[in-house]
């Protein structure tokens, strides 16, 4: 769904329990990453660059299958500690996040 003009939040995706990869790059999706919590066991790829997502990375804490996380140009805050358990992580992009996103 990348490169569209989608709005709203990620909440409708929370019920798609088989979802392994999400690419909604370059839209105007807001809200938080919280709906991704329910996808934790299978979620591998999150591509949400250039949206309006806020809040912390905390909802990704249990997403241990994550391999690629690309969240540039959003309004995320907090630290990277929630990703400590993501041992399969191969790529993490958080450029142009809010200054309060601490490393």
């Amino acid at each position, binding site marked *: 769904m990348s490169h569209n003009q989608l709005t709203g939040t990620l*909440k*409708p995706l929370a019920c*798609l329990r088989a979802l392994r*990869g999400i690419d909604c790059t370059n839209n105007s999706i807001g809200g938080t990453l919280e709906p991704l919590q329910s996808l934790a066991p299978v979620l591998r790829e999150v591509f949400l660059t250039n949206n309006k997502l806020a809040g912390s990375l905390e909802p990704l804490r249990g997403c241990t299958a994550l391999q690629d996380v*690309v969240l540039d140009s959003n309004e995320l805050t907090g630290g990277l500690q929630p990703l400590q358990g993501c041992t399969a992580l191969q790529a993490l992009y958080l450029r142009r996040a809010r200054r309060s996103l601490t490393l």
Partner: protein
Amino acid sequence: MWAARVAMILSTLTSLSAHLRKQARPRREEKLRANHEVHTHNAVQAKSHTQSDPESSIEEEPGGLTLVQELGEAINTPQRLDEQDPAAALDTLPDDLLLHVVVACGGEWLIGVPELDAVSALGSLCKDVLQQLSRLLPFVYRRVHGLTHGRTHGPWRVVLLFTGEPTATVVDEAWRGHVRSIDARGTTLTPAVAKRVVPELLGVGCSLLDLKLEGLQLGIGSWRQTFGEAAVCSTALLELQLDDCGLSGPLPELNLPALQILWMSSNQMSGGLEPLMRCTALQELDGRDRRV
């Protein structure tokens, strides 16, 4: 138990492979010769088919998943096979085990359905195997760029994977269940055919498994303007690609419970993601333009 069965099948296939290659080689040469004759004498083509009405030989299936389900039944107790003479061993195989051998011959489109070219030599191993296959009529697939090919190929139920412009004929054949995959990327779609896409390819009772329309220049318009108002509710569809089609406006309500892959990038779709909520088998939501 399973390991023993798998080992037995692998062993059989190994010994069969050389045998099949020997069988397939003359068949391919025959085919080439036949094709050459078709170009020079059209009448030969009609005689080369063993059944006169290819339409009647294709059985209708209510949904694409039944292709796999039918082939995925449990297998019986394995029998000892004669590795010295695989053809002789094959004529004593139980039906379900023979179907496993057929499936194991390969194909990369859909698990459980092999490609016709990979299995066609099985039918020429011996008369008993041919009869058994004729009774079972296993599903196989064939990739085509036109619909002039005969769909009857000995003891096989052939479904077609079509690549090319989605004409009215292609839609007709998909609606009948003969075409199970349409790859129309980069081609064109007339407005008249576009109006048939949802009711006859993505609607109730449709058996198409994947539809790829990436890059079709449909003109900037909403889903409703382009495809009409029919409900998108196929229970068979596994993959839908509609990238870069010039679609605008809100997402349509997608009631596609079997859909696993959805690509709709580079359009001008607006609104929220709620219309996707009933795609409960979705695994991949857009795989385009990934940077990693």
